[in-house]
């Protein structure tokens, strides 16, 4: 049996990790299709005998006999009546997007959960469920990108350090110690005072501090593996350094690396949430989970905000930790086949 098959079987035998992976995948898939689940534009309109797809195509107000050349506001009673008179519209399950302010609310915001807003609204009258759905996507995509990018950099740098060793290793290690000693939070505060970062800039800034995370692991694996006989044999065959590093050593070092990835993901989510909570992260336009945490703190009289975001965050992180534990155990070579 191939080694990956055995690992997959080991992972599946760990019930908790496997169920966590399924739930996590479903949540992530759903959040990827947030536009189809929570949107203030209808999915499908039949208007004067024509099928329209407003969530993908922009129709103007004038198109629906309105006065403006801007995009139609489907929450507007005028447009809704116009469509109802000339056909029908199918709205998404949650008829609000993350930034849709519900002007039809009859109570001061934040409003408690109701049939219109299942988890209530935040202090600007936006639907919390929609914001959470989009927020999960934002957090996960951010975390995935951050993890992948820092893993790539970490693996390359760690590989170079571990493989060449000696002076290369010595100097890079000293540099890393200095770099890791830079206070991340202060630098972010300075950056946030100059401009409000958007998704890409925040990703790059966070990458500056997270790329060194995997280096110790990869470096240690390379230091260990570079002395193995099969590496010497490859050298004796005349195989080049680059090829030895990535064809001979990396496949043997990747296990230790993969084991860390779920935990890096969890860390990245926490980091982004914390920055947004402090107001140092993404601007208010983004549906971030950290922003909801902040709202929960600011609106203690509206406990549904705080409770909701608490449950969401703790579930998400717990799932990732469970998956991480499962991966770690599945990759453990000492683990016997088929024990949970």
């Amino acid at each position, binding site marked *: 049996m191939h080694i990956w098959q055995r690992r997959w079987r080991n992972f599946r035998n760990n019930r908790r990790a496997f169920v966590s992976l399924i739930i996590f995948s479903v949540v992530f898939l759903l959040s990827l299709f947030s536009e189809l689940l929570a949107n203030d534009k209808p999915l499908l309109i039949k208007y004067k005998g024509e099928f329209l797809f407003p969530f993908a195509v922009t129709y103007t107000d004038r198109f629906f006999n309105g006065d403006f050349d801007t995009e139609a506001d489907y929450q507007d009673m005028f447009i809704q009546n116009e469509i109802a008179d000339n056909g029908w519209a199918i709205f998404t399950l949650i008829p609000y997007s993350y930034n849709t302010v519900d002007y039809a609310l009859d109570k001061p915001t934040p409003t408690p959960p109701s049939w219109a807003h299942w988890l209530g609204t935040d202090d600007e009258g936006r639907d919390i469920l929609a914001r959470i759905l989009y927020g999960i996507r934002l957090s996960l995509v951010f975390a995935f990108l951050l993890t992948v990018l820092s893993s790539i950099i970490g693996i390359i740098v760690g590989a170079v350090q571990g493989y060449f060793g000696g002076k290369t290793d010595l100097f890079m290690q000293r540099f890393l110690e200095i770099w890791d000693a830079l206070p991340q939070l202060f630098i972010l505060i300075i950056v946030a005072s100059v401009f409000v970062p958007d998704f890409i800039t925040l990703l790059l800034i966070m990458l500056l501090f997270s790329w060194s995370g995997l280096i110790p692991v990869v470096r240690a694996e390379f230091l260990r593996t570079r002395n*193995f006989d099969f590496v010497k044999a490859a050298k004796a*065959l005349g195989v080049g350094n680059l090829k030895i590093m990535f064809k001979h050593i990396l496949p*043997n070092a990747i296990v230790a690396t993969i084991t860390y990835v779920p935990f890096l993901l969890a860390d990245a989510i926490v980091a982004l949430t914390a920055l947004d909570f402090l107001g140092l992260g993404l601007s208010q336009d983004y549906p971030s989970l950290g922003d909801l945490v902040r709202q929960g703190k600011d609106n203690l009289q509206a406990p549904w905000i705080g409770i909701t975001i608490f449950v969401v965050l703790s579930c998400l992180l717990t799932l990732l930790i469970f998956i991480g534990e499962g991966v770690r155990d599945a990759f453990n070579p000492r683990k016997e086949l088929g024990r949970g």
Partner: protein
Amino acid sequence: MPLIPERSLAVDNVLLQVKNLSVAFGNKPVVKNVNFCVRQGEVLGLVGESGSGKSVTALSVLKLVQGATYDAASSIVFDKQSIFDLNDDELCAIRGRDISFIFQEPMSSLNPLHRVGKQIVEILRIHQNMSETQAIRYAVKLLAMTGIRHPKEKFYSFPHELSGGQRQRVMIAMAIANHPKLLIADEPTTALDVTVQQQIIDLLLKLQKKLGMAVLFISHDLNLIKKIAQRVCVMKNGEIIEQGDVEKVFYHPQNPYTKALVSSSVFDKGNDDVLPKGGTVLCGKNLCVRYPVKKNFWGKTLKFNHVLDGMDIELHKGECLGVVGESGSGKTTLAMSLALLNKFSGKVCLNGVDIHALKNKDFRRKLQIVFQDPYTSLNPRMTIKQILEEGLNIHFSQMDKNEKRVRIDAVLKSVELDSSVLDKYPHEFSGGQRQRIAIARSLVLEPEVLILDEPTSALDVTTQVQILNLLKNIQKTRDLSYIFISHDMRVVRYMANRVAVLHNGKVVECRRADAFFQNPYDDYSKELIKASLI
């Protein structure tokens, strides 16, 4: 008053009786229905290849095997007590008092954080009602009995400050501290150099006679068992396939496996091939490799450890040059330097050209190396096909697929494997097969010089012979020159045309093999030959 009262030798008294012993890990049986007994005062040898269940059998005597399940029919009776009926406390009382152990690797059996004397004292105080001062005095006496020089000073040493032989002596002191009735020695000399091996065996036998204890001696080395044991059990795949007196088993073996084992263990024949008269293929002049041992505050090295200390070596075309020496004598470092795998000073010439003047690619193609351990020398993540093709892709990139395939098939044939192995991974093969694959990987480039760094010492005896004969055949058909490195004098005598003896980083003797084995000049060579070829 004698230190330990002598016991009378009662030859026919059965001390340990093992009946129908079956041990399994999970569903995997490791020991199957084993029966044997140890009589008082005798040495019983337990031989078998690695994985034959020797150690598990021995450890089972004291239920020391973790995670094992014992078959219900198993019975072990020691000194009229059934081991399986004893509770943990009673077992602990027997362990170390009536039965003691010596293991292969003394470094891992000693606690690195305690002085060795203290570890002996601990054992004495657990099993015998001694005061601290009594125990210390007794422990020093024990150390003296094991022939350690300056026992009082060594008492306060840490394990890492002692040599391998000294550590094993400490282990022996601990083992005999409580005057056990049975001593179980699990490959006690395998990790030691040949000359030290001899001393430890002598010591064990001396103490065994003096104390009248029985010894269960486990080893893969048939010659050793033949020398020291009265009776022997031969194990294979968890079963005892033959047992009896040493003379009977070794000189009139009944079982075909024993026959093969006995015949393969005797490399009594030297290499009688004609000494080839070719020119020099590879020569190393004034090779030096040194590592810093001590540095001063500014990083300047004050003391070096010279692994190679001005070594000169020469390999003639078509010959097999045996390189022998104990561990630490620089054998492997020499191999690595000649193959340009570590840094050294000095000059190495291939066919008269300095290898630093050659292109790396040209040099690599002509000189290949085979490593000791076939379990680590093949990348576990590559198929055999990828492993064999890798060299071709670098040095013969102009070849098309079919040409490469023809070359690979031919090489596989010469190492006696068929092409069905190509899509498999290394872990699917046994040690011997892996070593064949490693040899094939080197041969595929059609080199002129092959450096063999202990190519058979990780293999079982029966496999050893096959690989050695294979290497001989390949040398003849392909006109190769070998540098054959080994610590095993018998293997070298079997293979080599010329022999070079290394000691402390220098060549102390380098001569024709037949002359060398008959009449070594150097004192060190004499000692080596005496210790290993009896």
